[in-house]
């Protein structure tokens, strides 16, 4: 039956704030730093949302775009891996891997116009009514992935436009996942202030010149800042006597949020009084104090074997280098925050036999729940135990995924580093990260707290929505 065309749509503005959390926003709002957000809150509705079971940017934004969970839309991670006879082939998920219809094509199919800016997995762009400028894309490939094609030259003519500055730089991103040196922090934050201004300018231009029924823009600087600057944002970690660096960084971070607040205010004004406005984040954020090297743990269980080439240890990279003939459970990357279980569907295939899969998965879950940090073993506390939750789904490669969501402050790390394979230390701190037998490490800087990912808080997504008829509620 043909879908009836909608004759009129209420103009809608969606502002995405990657990683935004009330934990950071509320104190800033109380201090008067974010007047526009404060005003929107005062006449709108706010709530905490559950993120996806693995609270990560690609699955979470895809869930927002589709209204479906990862088990349905098929996006679990930045990467997807396909284990072939020649080895594991890693590539990035893209739009073609989303198995459910997105809000962009739903609106387009109903006769509406959409604008989608800086959302992940929007390349190659679908052919919809409206404009798409994908996020999570290198500047080198931006022109070819903007829709419609002529839009790129139009954006290039905007004063100050820089494809380089609005795009994703993989080396920058890699750096953001590590500890950024103090002398680079300031330029890192300033870069994101400039970057958000570019996206704001693009959004304004399109709202004025290519107006859409649904305009959506995602500001991901929030996430980037919080990765490296959490200790300057979370009041629980601010020093009583801040050093000059801490004072500078705190003020710079506040500058970022004030600027962002201004952009939000301007966009809401531009959308008009009769527009419906949503602000949403994809996941929350928090401090990480401990890293669990999950692949080391899986190795200790005999489920994983590292690759060696000519007896040499593999180099650190974006994803793990494993012996695929002898690995049946693994975490592909540092962002996976879970375990992939390989299933053998045919005799001779490497993996857990399909008839044993459920039992294997459940047993792995029990073992995760039983896993305790060595420092807490003596105290007998259970409060910091890992908890596991299941997200069952099939990736494009067919592997069934088991995702473990851990408690806050514990990050499941999977990035292979050469020092992870160092010989056991002769003594000292068993949690130094250099003991082959111990998968627990402190953050790589040695600090008790570093600004990294909240891998377990599934309740910190922010959504506020209001429309003219909800004012005053």
């Amino acid at each position, binding site marked *: 039956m043909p879908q009836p065309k909608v004759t009129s749509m209420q103009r809608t503005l969606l502002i995405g704030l990657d990683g935004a959390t009330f934990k950071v926003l509320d104190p800033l709002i109380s201090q008067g730093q974010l007047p526009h957000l404060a005003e929107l809150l005062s006449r709108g509705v706010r709530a905490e949302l559950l993120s996806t079971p693995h609270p990560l940017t690609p699955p979470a934004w895809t869930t927002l775009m589709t209204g479906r969970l990862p088990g349905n839309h098929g996006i679990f991670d930045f990467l997807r891996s*396909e284990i*072939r006879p*020649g*080895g*594991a*082939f890693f*590539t*990035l998920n*893209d739009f*073609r891997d989303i198995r459910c219809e997105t809000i962009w094509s739903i609106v387009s199919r109903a006769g509406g116009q959409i604008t989608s800016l800086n959302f992940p997995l929007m*390349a*190659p762009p679908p052919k919809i009514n409206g404009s798409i400028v994908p996020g999570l894309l*290198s*500047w*080198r*490939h931006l*022109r*070819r992935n903007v829709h419609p094609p002529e839009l790129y030259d139009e954006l290039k003519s905007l004063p100050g436009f820089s*494809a380089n500055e609005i795009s994703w730089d*993989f080396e920058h991103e890699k750096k953001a996942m590590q500890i950024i040196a103090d002398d680079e922090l300031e330029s890192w934050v300033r870069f994101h202030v400039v970057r958000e201004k570019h996206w704001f300018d693009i959004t304004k231009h399109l709202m004025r010149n290519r107006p859409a029924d649904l305009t959506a823009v995602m500001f991901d600087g929030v996430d980037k800042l919080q990765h490296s600057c959490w200790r300057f944002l979370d009041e629980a970690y601010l020093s009583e006597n801040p050093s000059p660096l801490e004072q500078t960084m705190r003020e710079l971070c506040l500058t970022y949020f004030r600027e962002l607040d201004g952009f939000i205010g301007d966009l809401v004004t531009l959308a008009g009084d009769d527009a419906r406005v949503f602000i949403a984040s994809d996941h929350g954020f928090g401090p990480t104090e401990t890293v669990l090297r999950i692949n080391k743990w899986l190795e200790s269980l005999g489920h994983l074997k590292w*690759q060696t*080439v000519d007896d040499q240890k593999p180099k650190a990279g974006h994803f793990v280098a494993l012996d*695929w003939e002898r690995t049946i459970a693994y975490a592909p990357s540092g962002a996976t925050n879970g375990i992939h279980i390989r299933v053998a569907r045919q005799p001779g295939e490497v993996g857990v036999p399909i008839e044993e899969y459920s039992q294997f998965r459940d047993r792995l879950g029990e073992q995760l729940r039983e896993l305790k940090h060595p420092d807490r073993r003596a105290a007998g506390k259970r409060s910091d135990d890992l908890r596991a939750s299941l997200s069952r789904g099939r990736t494009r490669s067919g592997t069934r995924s088991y995702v473990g969501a851990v408690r806050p402050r514990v990050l499941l790390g999977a990035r292979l580093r050469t020092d992870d394979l160092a010989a056991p230390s002769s003594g000292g701190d068993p949690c130094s990260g250099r003991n082959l037998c111990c998968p627990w490490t402190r953050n790589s800087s040695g600090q008790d707290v570093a600004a990294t990912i909240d891998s377990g808080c599934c309740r910190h997504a922010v959504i506020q929505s209001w429309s003219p008829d909800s004012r005053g509620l």
Partner: protein
Amino acid sequence: METQTILTDLTNILNDLTADWDTSYEEGIGPATRLIGDLNFESIDVVQLITAVEEHFRRRDLPFEQLLMKEGQYVDEVSVGEMVDFLAKHLN
């Protein structure tokens, strides 16, 4: 599909892909052109090239690991000619 046609298509894809880059590669793209050594490809660019090839030929089942990996390791370099041979083998 004839090898010459594949070479022409792949050359066009690469020219379009690198149009905004400063590769300082002054020779025309041909079978001997190396993706990394000559065109300054990074790993993410190879991913995008694969996407562009898949979209152009409307095939998502091409076993690119056979071109890009050897004995479980990613190769250090790929030439246009090697890619053409790979496509000729798997598109036909």
